[in-house]
Structures are given as C-alpha cells and as structure tokens.
C-alpha cells in the first residue's frame, strides 16, 4: 500500500464520520474569528437558539477594519460601519464566552499573524477562519483553510465541517535560493508557474530543500499565498524549525504534554512512498526577485525582465485578460519592470508583516531616504507583539528616519477597508497578496513584491533589482 501524504494524515486524524454520498464530517480544532465575516454567523446562532459547541476552540481578534493610527475604544473609530463591526465582535465574543484580543491588547493583530504567534495553532490541527488566507497556518503542518460565513456558523455550532477530501499536490523547490530572493519571490514564482487556478481542488504541500531552508515566517509567507494559486490549503511538513517555533508560546502544550506532542508531531510528514496526484519540481536557481505587473497574481515577472506581450499568448481567454490588465494598470507590453514608477508603498499584511519581514525592509531603509516622488510609505506590523519587538530592535526609528510611516497593527492597505488606501491611478509596491482591480482603493494599481523590494522601490521611486542596490 502506498504511503500517506501529510494531508492524508491530517484528514484521517480528523474524520468524525464518512457519509454514503462521499462527503465527510471533519473535526475542527481551532477557529479564528474576525469582525468582518462573523457577525452573520453569530446572528444565525442566536436566531436558531444555538450555543457554540466548544468555546475554547475559538479565538477572535479585530484586524480588517481597524485604523492604523492609535485609538483606545471602538467609539473612536470614525467610520460608522467599521465601528459597528468592531463593536459587534466585542459584543458577540462576550455574549458567547469566546476569547478576543481586542482594542488595546498587545496580542491584537491580523488573524493569521496573531494565531501562530500565540501558539493558538500547533502542528496536527485543523484550523479554519472566515478568511481565505487561513492557509498561512499550514506552515505549521496544519490543515488550515478559509471558509465562508455559513461555515463559520456551522463550526461554531457543531465544531465540524462537512467536507470532501481534496486531491494532493506537492510543489518542491529544490536547491539554494539566490541572494535577494525571499519566500515571497518563491511563492510569486510558483503562482507564475502553476497559475491562479493551478491548485484548485488540491491541498498543496510545499517541500524541497529551499522550502526547508526557510524560517517559520518564510514558510507562512509561502503558505499564505496558496489561495492565490487556487488551493484552499497549503502546508509544510514538521521539522525542527516548526517545533522550535511553537515551543514556549502561550497556548502551546507544556510539560509532559509537550513531549507527547513533539513525538506525535514528528510523524506529520509525507511518507517517502506517498503518491501525489500532481507533483511539481521547481529549481530554486530559476527564481529571481518578482514583481507582479497585472491584475491577477499570476501576472508576475522577474524584476530584470520586460513586460510580456499579449500577442504572444495563444490562449484567447488569457490574452484578453492580459489586455484588460494592461489597460487597467496603465502599462505597455515590452517595458522594463524597473521603469514602473511607484506612488505609494505598503509594507504589511498577513503575507509580510512579521518581524523578519520588517527586518528585511529596515535593512534596505537604513541610511536611505524615501524618494520625493513617492507620496507615502506605510509600514504596518502584523500584531501588537510584532510592533513591540520591532521597536525593541529600533526598526521603527530606521523607518521614520527614512521618511516611512510607522503604524498600528491591522490589515490596513492590503484591502483598504480602513482609511489607508490608494487614489485612482496610483501605483503601489505592496507586500500584500492580491493585485485585483480596486483591491487597495478604487482605481489603484498594485504590484506585489517582497518587503526588501518594496523598501527599495520606496527609496528609488521605481522598481529596482534588490540585487543591484547601490550601498547606502
């Protein structure tokens, strides 16, 4: 019998019941809740007179709507609808007895930064959240994926989900990453290769020596964007990096439980003889710093290349998509990526707002200044704890000295639900994960890059190859 993949193991360990029609009931260990996709779920519970199945399984925080300027209570949020959502989460978590890291709590932050940081996510768990980037948590060898609001309610009420097993896909990145090439470039490159629907229907495992060489933060960046490759869930097998990361975190097992846990977690790897429905290998040496040029994450290219020509695309649907993207982005085929000027820069989001990301951006910002042609550079840490750590290391001072703005934690300009946003037509070097039309503000033009590349663009006023940056 063929061996099992990591995903097979996680799936099997959480099977509550299999139904005749091929669907299954799987147990959910952890649900993470935020203010945007939960109000209707709590309302549903109330209307049906139901109680949460197991309140300790859930942990909540506010992130999507919060201003990134200091505020002390919901009442201080100017935007009325944002205020209502933040307040509603507070009321709901209180009513149902769910832990919330709310306003003023140093643990508050972007859901997918907060949860691993607290150890609220540990290997072997099933993790869901009403947010598609829940895949981030798969970096800890979890089955983690986004769900809709009806499912948030379903998990609250039953601690399970009705699911169907996905297929297995492995993407192995083998070899050593070149200088200036980060986890973000790896995942953007992967999406460029397999396409935004390449992973649809699959659970993705990232493997290979280049993935294993990444820190936990880097692995989270890679798993974060599984959904941009079409896969709901992305994951990385357990190794020492995983276990060292979890150790000592507030929610992590302690004492005898810890030893027992580690022993079990060591088994959370794909067996050598496991068979994947799709198995892709990428040579790490082929990956260069990436910049997205269009309105879909697969429209991505190396910084040292010229923009692609739609006329060379044989697939008609893709070609018309490219043409529309050129129109929206105000760019021309054939132009060098480094000629694209940048109006604003955003360093943050659940993709790249952890301490390592901020360190990488600060390293570039150090001793340099924001270009006069760049209107604004926002640096938004992923959580209160990341912010604290960065300040202890003096990163905030580096950013401020370079003319960057140092903000409070939240999703911020990743989706511009709060006041941080692009004006129509502006180009933004952004460390976030989506370059859809209007994502960062109506008419805004997003270019996805790594934190170092974003900081370099802020300094130069246009994209630059981080490998060729002049010394400060």
């Amino acid at each position, binding site marked *: 019998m063929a061996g099992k993949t990591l995903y097979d193991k996680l799936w099997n360990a959480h099977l509550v019941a299999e*139904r005749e029609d091929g669907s299954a009931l799987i147990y959910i260990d952890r649900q993470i809740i935020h203010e945007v996709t939960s109000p209707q779920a709590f309302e549903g519970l109330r209307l049906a007179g139901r109680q949460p199945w197991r309140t300790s399984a859930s942990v909540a925080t506010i992130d999507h709507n919060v201003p990134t300027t200091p505020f002390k209570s919901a009442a201080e949020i100017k935007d009325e609808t944002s205020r209502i959502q933040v307040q509603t989460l507070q009321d709901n978590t209180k009513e149902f007895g769910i832990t919330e890291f709310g306003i003023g709590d140093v643990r508050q932050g972007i859901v997918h930064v907060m949860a691993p940081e607290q150890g609220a996510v540990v290997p072997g768990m099933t993790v869901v959240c009403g947010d598609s980037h829940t895949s981030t948590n798969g970096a800890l060898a979890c089955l983690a994926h986004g769900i809709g609001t009806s499912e948030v309610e379903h998990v609250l009420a039953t601690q399970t989900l009705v699911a169907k097993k996905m297929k297995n896909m492995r993407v192995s990145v083998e070899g050593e990453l070149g200088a200036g090439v980060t986890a973000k470039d790896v995942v953007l490159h992967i999406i460029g290769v397999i396409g935004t629907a390449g992973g649809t229907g699959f659970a993705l495992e990232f493997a290979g020596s280049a993935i294993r060489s990444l820190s936990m933060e880097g692995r989270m960046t890679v798993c974060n964007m599984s959904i941009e490759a079409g896969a709901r869930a992305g994951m990385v097998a357990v190794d020492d990096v995983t276990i060292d990361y979890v150790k000592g975190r507030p929610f992590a097992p302690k004492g005898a439980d810890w030893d027992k846990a580690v022993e079990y977690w060591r088994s959370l790897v794909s067996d050598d003889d496991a068979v994947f429905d799709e198995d892709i290998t990428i040579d790490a040496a082929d990956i260069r710093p990436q910049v997205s040029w269009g309105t879909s994450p697969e429209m991505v290219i190396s910084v040292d290349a010229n923009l692609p020509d739609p006329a060379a695309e044989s697939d008609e649907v893709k070609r018309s998509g490219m043409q529309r993207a050129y129109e929206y982005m105000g760019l021309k085929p054939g132009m060098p990526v480094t000629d694209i000027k940048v109006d604003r820069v955003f360093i943050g989001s659940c993709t790249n707002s952890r301490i390592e990301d901020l360190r990488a951006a600060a390293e570039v910002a150090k001793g340099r200044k924001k270009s006069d042609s760049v209107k604004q550079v926002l640096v938004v840490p992923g959580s209160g704890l990341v912010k604290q750590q960065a300040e202890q290391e003096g990163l905030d001072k580096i950013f401020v000295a370079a003319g960057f703005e140092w903000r409070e934690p939240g999703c911020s300009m990743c989706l511009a639900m709060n006041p941080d946003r692009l004006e129509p037509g502006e180009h933004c070097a952004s460390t976030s994960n989506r370059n859809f039309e209007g994502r960062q503000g109506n008419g805004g033009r997003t270019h996805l890059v790594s934190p170092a590349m974003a900081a370099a663009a802020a300094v130069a006023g246009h994209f630059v190859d981080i490998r060729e940056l002049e010394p400060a």
Partner: protein
Amino acid sequence: MEKFVRHDGLVAPLDRANVDTDQIIPKQFLKSIKRTGFGPNLFDEWRYLDEGFPGQDNSQRPLNEGFVLNQPRYQGASILLARRNFGCGSSREHAPWALMDFGFRAIIAPSFADIFYNNCFKNGLLPIVLSEDNVESLFKAVEGKEGFRITIDLDSQQVIPEAGEPLAFEIDEFRKHCLLNGLDEIGLTLNEADSIRAYEERRAEQEPWIFQ
C-alpha cells in the same frame, strides 16, 4: 436555505476570466452585519462610473452603460454565464449573498474557485460547471439572440438551453440533496452529535492539549 429544484431564466453573459470576489462585491460593502441588501452593489466598480460607498442612493449614480448587466436586454437576468475560475480571491460569503440579492439563482462557468463554489451551496445559489466548449457555445447563443433563456433542472442535472441540446452537469450528491430540499446543514450535522462527542473523547486521550 432557499430550495433549488428547477429554474427557468434569462441569461446574462459576463465575458471575463478570473472574476474575483473583490469585483463581485467590493470591500467597502462588507461592513454590513446583515446577509441582505448587497444586490445594488454587486459588481459595483464595473456597474457604476463613480466610487460607491455603503448607504448611498444607487439610483442617483452614473451607470457604466457598457457593462453587461446595465444593458436593457439583460434586465431581469437570473442566470449568469461566466468564464473560468469565477469567484477567486477572498472567502467572503457576501459574494453569493450579493449575487442572490441581485436576483441570480445560478451561475454557469467552466470552473469556479473552491471557497466561492462551496459558499454558493449554503445559500441556494447553484454553481454549474460545464466544459469550456459548452460554455463558449452558450456565450455565442446568448449574445446572438436577445432574450435567450435557459432552464436548469437540478434533479436530472441538466442545463436546457431554449435552442440546442440539453447539457448534463455533475454535482455532489449531498449538496444536491440539501439544495433540492432546502435543508439546514447545521441541523443535519447536529443529528450526529453523538459521533462528534465520541470523536472528541478519543482525540482528548491522544492529544489532550487540543482541548485545553
């Protein structure tokens, strides 16, 4: 949940691939804490020429006449014909809520993003996957004749265009059953509460830290 058994309706063609949920319902409208009222802002950035915000009187806004849903011939459409990877992006269930609220009952496309596909079923909106070729011929048929209608029969799993052959589609049994009967999934799952409890007991022995 609203039942879906058989539906006959006017078809609107949305000729774009990779339509993402940010496009279906832009983020500024996610701030509502209700499930209804999203219809007027469906495809907001494509439908209107100005920037929309919640609570606005949409009847006063300048329309983008070129956008397919604004064309007179597609008024009253309840079936959306779309291209591959429809509904990619965020997990927001506001996307199917907005489509339903606008009046759509079914979407036909060559492929859907996973989370969106799943969310549709929770709300009585039927996403139907047909081959690229079949979708292409439906686009031609719809664009070629004003008022083109399609009947969808869930029980027999058929898309029946007003002209041409019926097209069969696949659907998972459980989802079909729930749609045909308008079932409450939570209620169904709670019938298995004993299995869930038994599972928890087993798990708590092996991984007690999960339950702390």
